[in-house]
């Protein structure tokens, strides 16, 4: 019996999700994976940091966040983006951070994404990060987005952000922590898996 014949017999339907568990760190967390830019990257350097809270208000020490974003000019480094050939070669777009540090914070060093241009079907997309949340107790990961509080005009016409309630919008906003003129702008964004401040999550 060939290996290929066995394969076709067993493949049918999507494979279900399972939790990353509490012990994912040495398999998924590598030094530097939370730094998205390299020497020469274009755009405003930013740091995004925060915590993830459970329904009891406790910051979680065993969560992993992944972010995916456009470069400073709103281009994704992927063939599905018609402008991908011009994407910043010094910017990867993907980052991963855990919350297992002493202070249970995640931290990304990246550049502020640009606005993604409009298409015939979709209005311009405000600068944002696409975010996945993994952790113990999350059998299927969670999907959300992070927007920037200092981009109010762009957010108001973003087709996703504008469709949300005020409370939902607030849960997605990262707040600037320092002066806009500083070399590295710091943004703070907390996620709440449950409770009065529950973060808006999309179906993954």
């Amino acid at each position, binding site marked *: *019996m060939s290996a290929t014949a066995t394969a076709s017999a067993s493949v049918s339907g999507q494979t279900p999700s399972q939790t990353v568990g509490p012990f994912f760190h040495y398999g998924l967390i590598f030094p530097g994976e939370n730094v998205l830019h390299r020497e020469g990257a274009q755009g405003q350097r930013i740091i995004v940091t925060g915590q993830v809270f459970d*329904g009891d208000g406790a910051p979680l020490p065993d969560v992993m966040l992944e972010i995916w974003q456009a470069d400073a000019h709103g281009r994704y480094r992927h063939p599905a983006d018609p402008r991908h050939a011009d994407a910043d070669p010094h910017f990867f777009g993907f980052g991963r951070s855990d919350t297992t540090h002493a202070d249970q914070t995640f931290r990304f060093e990246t550049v502020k994404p640009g606005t*993604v241009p409009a298409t015939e079907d979709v209005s311009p997309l405000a600068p944002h990060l696409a975010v996945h949340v993994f952790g113990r*107790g999350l*059998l299927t990961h969670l999907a959300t987005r992070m927007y920037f509080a200092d981009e109010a005009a762009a957010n108001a016409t973003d087709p996703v952000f504008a469709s949300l309630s005020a409370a939902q919008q607030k849960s997605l906003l990262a707040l600037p922590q320092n002066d806009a003129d500083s070399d590295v702008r710091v943004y703070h964004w907390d996620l709440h898996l449950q409770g009065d401040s529950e973060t808006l999550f999309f179906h993954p």
Partner: protein
Amino acid sequence: MPDPLPLPLAPRLSDAVHPPHLSPDYRSTLARAPRQRLLPRPQTLAELTAPVYGEDRLKPLDHDLTRNGVRDGAPQGERIIVTGRVIDDTGRPVRRALVEVWQANAAGRYIHKLDQHDAPIDPNFTGAGRILTDDEGCYRFISIRPGAYPWRNQPNAWRPPHIHFSLFGPQFPTRLVTQMYFPGDPLLKLDPIYNSIPDEDIRRRLISDYDHAVTEPGFGLGYRFDIVLCGGRMTPFENLKL
């Protein structure tokens, strides 16, 4: 200010397939499952794209967990070979996809400061590896069969031996993290994480097959574990108003 144009929606993971966020027998979900209704995910360029990986991100021994953590000898335990195909639910192979795996050692112990199980750490086994799928969507790695280990979810709780898998599909919404289990394991029917998947036939998709064609003489037993991701729906934007 004009109303934004409506959005197409991204393909989604199926409720019938994936475990619910709130699964009370798995106690950690109680304070962590969102209570608000999840919204349909929009389909914009963020969802039509995903990280693109290359060989330059992998080291030569990343696919061999029996060698990539060696300090002064071979790791303890039963050597295994694990292989399979990664396809999407339209049947297309997921090519050059990054597959990341991590697992306990043969004694059921993770290298992690919070793992307090008093089984021995194996100095020659880290239990982590990375593989890229080939043009047919196939991956293959060599490892040690992981042991069961106790946890505190319920009285006398033991996790069945398992290998964690992380996969990136062709688009950001096709991301999947899952676990591979071994055939014939009596712990499976007692495990709240495995049983969080409501349908028994769908749960069984997480059990690998013993495959004698993968087994290598004098070396190790072979297991086959095929993985089907949510299908990517490619509608690249060719009409950007720049």
